[in-house]
């Protein structure tokens, strides 16, 4: 099933009138104690964002819109993912991938386990994909950003994009 509408992260803010808490009911593997997170935008940083824990400060993750890191990224989101998010199958979701920075200046992005956030419910889950070809540590900086991620065009024509 691949009809998920992937939309711009800004929608998370606009449609919620400033309420930006994203709840990961099941926690994020390795960081299970942090359930509520907030997306922090910074124009300079785009297409990167900070995801800041509201439960465990100063826990912060650097995330990126995956289309900025790799072309043709189409994670398979099963019906079960939408059910766990409390959202209708195929409804609007925002997808981020977690970036890992290492001391030697390398940056990798986790394409195997994207963060999927429902715009309807503001619930999120780190979905571990069955598709084995997406690596957990995809080298980001050496490859550079794709053109897709730096443009401003919305990725779908869903209701959220109006």
């Amino acid at each position, binding site marked *: 099933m691949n009809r998920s509408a992937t939309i711009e992260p800004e929608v998370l803010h606009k449609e919620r009138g400033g309420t930006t808490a994203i709840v990961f009911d*099941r926690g994020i593997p*390795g960081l299970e104690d942090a359930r509520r997170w907030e997306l922090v935008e910074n124009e300079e940083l785009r297409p990167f964002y900070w995801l800041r824990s509201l439960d465990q400060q100063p826990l912060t993750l650097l995330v990126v819109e995956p289309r900025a890191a790799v072309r043709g990224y189409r994670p398979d989101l099963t019906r079960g993912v939408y059910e*766990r998010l409390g959202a209708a199958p195929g409804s609007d979701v925002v997808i981020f991938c977690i970036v890992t920075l290492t*001391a030697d200046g390398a940056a990798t992005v*986790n394409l195997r386990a994207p963060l999927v956030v429902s715009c309807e419910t503001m619930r999120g889950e780190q979905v*571990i994909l069955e598709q084995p070809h997406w690596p957990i540590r995809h080298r980001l*900086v050496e490859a550079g*950003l794709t053109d897709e991620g730096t*443009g401003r065009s919305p990725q779908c024509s869903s209701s959220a994009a109006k």
Partner: protein
Amino acid sequence: MLVLSRKVGQSLIIGNNIRVKVVEIRGQQVRLGLEAPSDVTVVREELHKAVADANVQAAKPSDASIASLASALRKTRPKKDDDK
């Protein structure tokens, strides 16, 4: 840990609605079939651990690594992004 013996074709029921079936045994490898409701995620342990390890590492970026990424981005980012 509960340890049980099963033959090919036999199953276990966990809770009321999770079924684990031994589908095939070939040498050292066992193929399992799983039926679980959609609120239960099933993932290989080593994959779950690899994701958890990556998450923990990602949660501790050093200032130096952030500065390094920022400078790398400035090099790779197309000019059109600076037009405002």
